[in-house]
Every structure is written in structure tokens, then in C-alpha cells.
């Protein structure tokens, strides 16, 4: 046991233990944690986070789990939350969390520039948006009218994904009968906006309701899908998917609000379209290859998110077998 190898092993393990503990504590203390959605992965990882880290020196960890799961995680923390911020595709959990005391009221520095349909101060502000799109297999030729849907559909899981929440919102506000028809044709319920589009790409289902931004992202990678504004009863509908930010109550990192304000800077807003989303502040370009807006005869659905509880109560009936 007095062998050199054993002594070296003991030394290596001791040094490893000290270095590991020190590093892990450092990482835990100095990192801003953002609960977000896979739909925003490219935008955040390639643009926002590197610029923010370069300017502030603060490490940012992005957590991609479904909104419902993240909200549960927040509730389980018992007043000691892990997350500083929520950046999500729907304000439902921000509204709900705010009413249940899990989020702080806040105001961004450029609040005056944000159009009214993209904020509900002081609960949340949207920093990017994307039209809800009917995404389909190009072999179908044209987007099927959802009122007469006769092929496989991928209804995103309404309790696990914001994409599902938007789908429910769309059908509940336009035609619950069409929603029931879509659900009857659903073969798989994707759990996030990315896996939803991938379901069309890999042929699991022929049609879904997804985000324009995510669809464009996959098209840029060579995925064969087509999309347009959802068609129902012969009319096209524009439903803005609002990517919104909220501040967690009792959040551990004091720079949380700085990160939100950073999202509204010109260098971020002007580059959002490069990542296939649309800026909320006026005067910045739309993504290349996106749906041309306004489309002739389109109907705009701007949802009043203060009515979140009635939307939430409708979600369970859109779970297959639920």
C-alpha cells in the first residue's frame, strides 16, 4: 500500500475533490438561471447569452424543459427557487404564477416602446414573437382547412408545452368543433414546439400547429415541411405567439432584470429575425422566408392573457385519452 501509485492516486483524488467542490460551488453561486423553451435555443445560445456574458461577465444557464414542468419545479422549491427568470412562449404560467405569488412585478426600461399586445405590465413583457402556423407535409400540396381535416394531426400536449396551449387557445377561440376534430386525428402529442415540427418532418403526422420561427429553423436545416397561417372555414388566422419574460420571486441572482432589459436592446431586437423570430420593437426586419404579413383577409387573434384561468381550464380536454 505504500506503493508510489497508491500515493499518487490519493493525491490526485484529494486535489480532484478540492477542485471539484470549489468549482461546483462557484458555478452554483455565480450563474443566472433562465427557465426557457427549446424553441428559443438558437436565439438565446447564439445571440443573447454570448453578448450578455461578454458584457457583464455573468454566466447564464438555460434550462429547456416544458413550461408546466418548470412551473412545478418552481412550486417545489418552497421559496428557494433555482431559477431567476422565465422566458416562455406563452404568458400563461407567468400570469398564473404571478397570481399565486411566484413571480415579481417588474418594469423594463423600454416599456414605452413595447406595443400593447406584447405586454401586460407589470407581470410580463414579450421580447419576440412568431405567428402560429399550420405546418404540413408538402406532399399534401396545400394546407388543409382545419374545419375539414381528414389526415393525421399532431396536437401538441397542452399540459406540457406552450405550443399545446396556443393550439388550444386557437381552437377554443375559433372553433371548438375543429379542435375536437384535430384531436380525433391526433396520433402523437409532442411535448415541445421543436418535437412538434419534427413530427411532420419524420412523417409521424401530416399536419400540426407550430411556430413559424421553429419551422423556419428546421427548414434552414433541410427539413421538408410547408407552412402558412392556419386555415379554418376558409379564413386565415394570425395568432401571435408571444415569447415573454417574467422575474421569479426570491430569485437568487441580482442581475436578473438586467438580462430582461438586455433582450430589448437594439442589437438584440435587430438580430432576432436572423433566428427566425420577429422583434417586438417596431422598425426591425422580419425573418427571411417567413409568412408575409398582413395576409389578405386574415383575422387577428390577440388573446387577453388576463383570462388565463379559463384557457387553463380548457387544456385538459385536449389531452388524448385524458
Amino acid at each position, binding site marked *: *500500500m*505504500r*506503493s*508510489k*501509485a*497508491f500515493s499518487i*492516486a490519493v493525491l490526485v*483524488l*484529494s486535489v*480532484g*475533490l478540492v*477542485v*471539484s*467542490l470549489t*468549482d*461546483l*460551488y462557484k*458555478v*452554483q453561486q455565480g*450563474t443566472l*438561471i433562465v*427557465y426557457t423553451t*427549446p424553441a428559443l*435555443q438558437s436565439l438565446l*445560445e447564439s445571440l443573447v*447569452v454570448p453578448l450578455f456574458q461578454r458584457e457583464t461577465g455573468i*454566466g*447564464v*444557464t*438555460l*434550462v*429547456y424543459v416544458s413550461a408546466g414542468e418548470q412551473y412545478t419545479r418552481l412550486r*417545489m*422549491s*418552497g*421559496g*428557494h427557487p*433555482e*431559477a431567476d427568470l422565465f422566458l416562455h412562449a406563452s404568458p400563461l404560467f407567468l400570469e398564473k404564477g404571478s397570481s399565486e405569488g411566484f413571480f415579481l412585478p417588474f418594469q423594463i426600461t423600454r416599456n414605452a416602446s413595447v406595443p400593447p399586445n406584447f405586454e401586460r405590465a407589470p407581470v410580463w413583457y414579450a421580447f419576440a414573437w412568431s405567428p402560429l402556423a399550420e405546418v404540413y407535409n408538402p406532399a399534401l400540396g396545400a394546407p388543409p382547412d382545419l374545419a375539414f381535416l381528414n389526415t393525421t394531426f399532431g396536437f401538441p400536449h397542452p399540459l406540457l408545452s406552450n405550443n399545446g396551449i396556443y393550439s388550444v387557445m386557437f381552437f377554443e377561440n375559433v372553433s371548438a368543433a375543429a379542435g375536437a376534430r384535430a384531436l380525433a386525428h391526433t396520433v402523437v402529442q409532442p*411535448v*415541445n414546439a*421543436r*418535437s412538434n415540427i*419534427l413530427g411532420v*418532418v419524420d412523417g409521424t403526422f401530416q399536419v400540426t400547429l407550430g411556430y413559424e420561427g421553429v419551422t423556419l429553423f*428546421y427548414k434552414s*436545416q*433541410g*427539413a421538408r415541411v410547408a407552412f402558412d397561417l392556419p386555415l379554418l372555414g376558409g379564413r386565415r388566422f394570425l395568432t401571435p405567439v408571444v415569447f415573454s419574460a417574467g422575474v421569479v420571486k426570491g430569485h437568487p441572482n441580482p442581475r436578473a432584470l438586467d438580462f430582461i432589459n438586455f433582450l430589448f436592446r437594439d442589437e438584440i431586437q435587430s438580430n432576432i429575425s436572423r433566428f427566425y423570430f420577429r422583434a417586438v420593437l417596431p422598425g426591425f426586419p422580419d425573418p427571411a422566408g417567413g409568412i408575409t404579413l398582413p395576409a389578405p383577409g386574415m383575422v387577428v387573434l390577440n388573446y387577453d392573457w388576463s383570462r388565463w384561468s379559463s384557457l387553463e381550464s380548457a387544456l385538459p380536454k385536449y389531452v388524448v385519452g385524458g
Partner: protein
Amino acid sequence: MVRFPFRRATLERTLWTVIVWFLFGLFVLGPLATVFAFSFTSSVLSGTGTFTLKWYGQLFSQPGLYGPLIRSFEIAVIVVVFQLMFGTIIAYSTVRAKIFGAKTLDTLSNITIAVPSVVVGLSLLSFYGPFGPFAAITQFLFGNPLSLTWTLWILVFAHVIETFPYMVRSMAAVLVKLDAHLESAARSLGANRLHVFLTITLPQLKPGLVAGSVLVLSRSIAEFGATIIVVSAVLKTAPIAIFTQAEAGSLELASAYSVVLMLVSFVAYLLMSRWLLKGETNA
């Protein structure tokens, strides 16, 4: 009459070899080789992807991506050190010290092999979480509830529980064969307990310590089920990162992670076992 150039036994052996290697390739090598191939493919989804190293470039240039690999090894090192003490004490208590309930403890030390790892994670979260007994006890004792939810310690505990049987079994196997007469002889010659342990017992435990450490290291690096329940976002380990990337549709990046994890685990395994065991034979 046609004469076969090979004997029947050779033919049977060849056929058997082909079948076994085919099955092994289908279930083990094939899937691993596909992950390897995907990690060098520009776009799996397009179906016409070309050879690229960009996923590895991304993996090693972005702290958010290579961080989980580092985290995995850091946590594994802590767990190995913890197990070297804890696992050894349990094995020694059940095999040599024969404490009361030694047999029960010995049986229970295997329980985490039978219990699904996700259940282990949930039980830790329940026990050490803000609504569990640990918070209630600390509230009663110190007037302030202590919760380990999303901390480093609950993650380390999860890995310790999951790897616990590997260290205990390795140590127990060595302890059973340990020659107790050597210790008795040393004691009769005046050596104290600590001296006997350091100079007689510990050297004989070395194969168990090495084997247990290697198994614990490998198991901890690969741990997923309990980790995904208890891990904090900043302490995300490599298996969780692979899952996240695959979920987000980045199959290529998830594959690159997997290849790096496989290679590093394999090299660590080889280094640790060969180096230490070589040291033993040279000693």
C-alpha cells in the same frame, strides 16, 4: 461424392460466430456506431448530411456545452471519495465487524440495484425537499427549515446511493477473503488498531478499493434516472445534456456529447484500473 473443404465442427463454429456477432452488432455495436456517425454528420434531418467536425467544435468552444462534461467528472470524483469512506465502512461493518443487523444491512446495501433510479431521485427530493422530514427536523432543531432541493449535496447523495452497491460489493468480496490471522499476529506483537489497519488490512483491500472506485466512477458519470429528478440546472451532467439536446432535436450535438462521454469514460476506466493495478504488482 462432394467433399467439403471444412470439417462440420468448423462450419458450425463459423455459423455460430456469424450469428453471435450479427446479434452483437445489431443490438450493441450498431447503435453505438450510428451515434458515432451522427456526430460527424452536418444534418441528420436532411438525410443528405455531409462529414463535419462542427459539432465537436461547438462542444469544445462553448462553456454551456462543455460544462456538463466537466460537471460529470467533478461529481464523480466527489462520489468516489465519499464511497471510499462510506462504502468501506459499510462493507467492513457487515463482513468483519459483524455489527448487529449485519446481514440485514448487507442485503439492504443492494437495494438500489432493485429500486428504479428515478424512485431514488424522488425519495431524496421528498426527504430533503422543503416539504419533507428533513426540513421539519431542521425547523424543529434550529428554527429554520433546511432544504437541499437543487443543491449540490442532494445530487451527490443521489449518486452515492446509486453507486453504493458497487463499492460495498467490491469491498465485501475482498474482505471475505482477508486473512484475519495476519491482523491478529500484528496485534499480538504490539501493534495498535490504527497501525494494523494501515499496514496490514488496507494493503489487502487495494483490489477492492480499485475495482470499487472504477465501478463507482463509471456508474456516476453515466447516472441519469435519479439525476434528472434532483439536479439543479447549473449542475447539469453530461447524460442530462445528451437528453436535453436530443429532446431539442439536436441529434448531432447529442451524438457528439455521447461520443466524448464514451471515450472519456473508457479512457478513465483503462487508466484507473491498469495504472493502479500495475502499481500493485510492482509494489
